[in-house]
C-alpha cells in the first residue's frame, strides 16, 4: 500500500482496475441470473417442462403437448420479455444519465406516452392490428422525441426544460389516449387496455424476430456511444474539454434512447417502470458507476421476474406483466425520490 501511495499513478490505476473488476463481476452475476430466470420462465408455471424434455424439444424432437406449449407460447414470450426488458433498461439508463436526473426516464418524459397514443390511434381509428401497431408506436415515440428536442432547444445544460416539456406532452397525450378509449366499443377498449399495460401475452416468433433485429442494430450503437455518455456525466463543459462533441453525442444518445424505448414499447406495450428502475438499480449494484450492459441485464431480469409473478399470481388468468412492474415500481420509486432528495440529487 505504501508503495502505491508513493506513486499516485499506480494508485489511480489500481482503483480503476478494482472498479472495472467490480463491473465485470456484477455483469457476469447478472447474466447468470437472467439466464436462470429465463429458464425458470420457460420451464415452470402452470405447465411444467423438465430440463431433459426442454433440451429434446430444442433438438427437434416432437413431444405431444409440451412441444407446442414451449415452442409457440413459453419460449417466444420469454425471448420477447428478455429483449424488451434489456431495451427498456438501456434506454432508461441512457436518458437518466443524459438528463442527469434519476426521474427523467422515457416513461416520465412522454416518449412511451407518444408511442401509446399512436398505437391506440391505430387500433381504434385505423383498425390496424399486429405489426402495423408496432410501426405506429415507433413513429409516435420518435415524433415526441423530435418535438421535445425542438421545443427544448436553447434550454442550455440544465435539461430542466426538456423534462418539463416532456411532462406537458405526456399529459396531453394521455388525454388523447383517454379520448380514443371512449370512442371505441368496449371489446376494443379491453384489448387496448391490455396493450396499454404492457403484456407479453401476444408474443409470437415473428415479433421476437423483429425485436431481435431492432435491438441487434441499436444495442451495438449504444455500446459505441457509451464512452461519450461517461464523458457527459462529468458535465458538458468538462466533456467538451475532453474532446467529446457534446451537441452531437447528446442528440445521438437521445435518439438512441427513444428508439430503444419505442421499439420495446412496440413489441410489448409500455411496461411500466422498467426503464425507470433499471438504471438506478444497476447503479446501486455497481456502487455508483454507470454501465449500460448492467442496466440492460437488470431490465431483462425485472421483466422476466415480473412475468413469472404475473403468469402464476392469479390461477387461470395471465395478468399483463406491466401490472406487476407497476405495483412493485411505485413503492420503489417513492423510496428513490426520498433518498435521492436527501442527498440533493432529486432535481
Amino acid at each position, binding site marked *: 500500500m505504501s508503495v502505491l501511495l508513493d506513486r499516485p499513478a499506480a494508485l489511480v490505476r489500481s482503483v480503476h482496475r478494482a472498479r472495472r473488476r467490480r463491473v465485470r463481476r456484477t455483469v457476469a452475476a447478472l447474466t447468470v441470473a437472467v439466464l436462470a430466470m429465463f429458464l425458470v420462465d420457460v420451464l415452470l408455471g402452470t405447465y411444467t417442462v423438465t430440463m431433459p424434455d426442454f433440451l429434446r424439444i430444442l433438438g427437434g424432437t416432437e413431444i405431444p403437448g409440451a412441444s407446442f406449449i414451449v415452442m409457440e407460447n413459453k419460449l417466444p414470450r420469454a425471448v420477447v420479455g428478455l429483449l424488451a426488458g434489456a431495451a427498456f433498461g438501456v434506454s432508461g439508463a441512457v436518458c437518466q444519465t443524459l438528463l442527469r436526473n434519476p426521474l427523467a426516464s422515457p416513461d416520465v418524459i412522454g416518449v412511451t406516452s407518444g408511442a401509446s397514443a399512436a398505437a391506440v390511434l391505430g387500433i381504434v381509428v385505423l383498425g390496424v392490428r399486429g405489426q402495423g401497431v408496432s410501426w405506429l408506436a415507433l413513429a409516435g415515440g420518435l415524433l415526441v422525441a423530435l418535438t421535445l428536442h425542438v421545443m427544448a432547444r436553447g434550454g442550455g445544460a440544465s435539461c430542466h426544460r426538456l423534462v418539463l416539456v416532456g411532462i406537458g406532452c405526456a*399529459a*396531453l397525450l394521455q*388525454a388523447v389516449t383517454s379520448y380514443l378509449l*371512449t370512442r371505441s366499443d368496449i371489446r376494443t377498449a379491453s384489448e387496448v*387496455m391490455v396493450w396499454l399495460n404492457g403484456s407479453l401475452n401476444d408474443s409470437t416468433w415473428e415479433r421476437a424476430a423483429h425485436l431481435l433485429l431492432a435491438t441487434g442494430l441499436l444495442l451495438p450503437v449504444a455500446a459505441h456511444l457509451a464512452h461519450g455518455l461517461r464523458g457527459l456525466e462529468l458535465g458538458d463543459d468538462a466533456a467538451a474539454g475532453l474532446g467529446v462533441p457534446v451537441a452531437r453525442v447528446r442528440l445521438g444518445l437521445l435518439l438512441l434512447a427513444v428508439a430503444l424505448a419505442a421499439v420495446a414499447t412496440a413489441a410489448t406495450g409500455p411496461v411500466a417502470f422498467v426503464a425507470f428502475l433499471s438504471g438506478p438499480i444497476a447503479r446501486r449494484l455497481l456502487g455508483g458507476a454507470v454501465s449500460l450492459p448492467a442496466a440492460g441485464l437488470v431490465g431483462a431480469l425485472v421483466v422476466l421476474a415480473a412475468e413469472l409473478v404475473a403468469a402464476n399470481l392469479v390461477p387461470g388468468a395471465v*395478468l399483463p406483466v406491466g401490472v406487476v412492474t407497476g405495483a412493485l415500481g*411505485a413503492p420503489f420509486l*417513492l423510496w428513490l425520490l426520498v433518498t435521492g432528495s*436527501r*442527498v440533493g440529487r432529486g432535481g
Partner: protein
Amino acid sequence: MGISTTVAARGGGVAQTGSARRGTAPGWVLLAAALVLLACVASLAFGARPLSWATLVEAWTDFDPADGDHAVIASRVPRTVIGLLVGAALGLAGAAMQGVARNPLADPGLLGVNAGAALAVVAAMFVLGQSSLTSLVWFAVLGAGIAAVVVYAVASLGREGATPVKLALAGAALSAGLASLTNGVLVTSQETLDAFRFWQIGSVAGRSWGDVAPVVPLLAVGAVVTLGTGRALNGLALGDDLARGLGQKVALSRAVVALGVVLLCGAATAVAGPIAFVGLVVPHVGRALVGGDYRWVLPLSGLLGAALLVGADVAGRLVLPPSEVQAGVMTAVLGAPVFLWLVRRSRGVAL
C-alpha cells in the same frame, strides 16, 4: 407574474403592483363575471341541435315542457351548472396550490392529485361494485388528499425544498405509478373499465342533478376555506421566514390551504373526472391581470376557471359535430400549449 420571477421579486411585486393595480382589480373581477355569464349563455345556446336566439329567450321567459327545443335547452342546464362549479373549483384550487407551493407549475392534474382520486375511485368501483357518484366522492377526496401529501412531502425533502422541477417530476412519477395500478384493476374487470373510461376522460356531460347534489356542500366548504386564505397566501409569498417574522403561523396556513385544495379537487374530480390544465393556466392569467395579491387572484381565478371550463365544454360540442369532444380533452388541448409556453418563456433560470 411569471415562472421566471423569483419569490423575492414576487413578494416585492405585491407591494408595488398591488397598490398600482388595486384600483383596477374589481373591474377585472366584474369583467370575469361577465365572461362567465357569456359562457353560460353560449352553453345553453350552442350544441348538436342548432337553436335560434329567439327560442332561447322564449324558453327563458315562457318555458313550455312540451316544446322539444325548450327541452333541449333545459337539458343543457345541468352540464352548464356542473361546468361552472367544477371550473371554479379547479381554478381556485390551482391558484391556492401555486400560492402555497410557491410554484408556478402547480396544478392538480400535473401533481398527481387527480391520479390519486382516480385510483381511489376505481378501487371503490371495483371492490364495492358501485358506480354511483354519491358513494365515490369521499373516496376521491381521500385519494386526492393522500396523493397531494405524498407528492409535496417527497418533493420538499432536500436542501432546496420543493422546486418546480422536483414537484413536477414527483407528480408525474407518482401519476405514472398510480395510473399503472389503476390500469391493473381495469384489466381484470371489464365492467369497471366500461364505467371508468367515460369518467377518466373528464367531462361535464351526462350528469344529473342527483349526481351533483352530494358534492355541492364539499365544494362550498372548500371554496369558503380557500377564499379565506388570501391574506395567508400573501404572507407565504414572502417566504416562510419573513411570514413567520410577521406573526403568521406558517404550518397552520399551509394545512388550511391544503385542506381547501383537497376538498375542491376531490369533489370536482368526483363529479367531472380528472380535468387537467384548468388549475394551471387560469391563475397565471389572474396574476397577470391583478398582480400578486391573492385576495384578488383567488376569486378572479375561480371565475376565470368557470368561464374556461364552460367555454371548453361548448367548444367540445362544436369542433366535431355531431359527436362531442369531452371538456377534459378540450382543456388539455387548449392548456398544453400554454404550459409549454410558460416553460419556454423561462430561460432556464429559477427552474
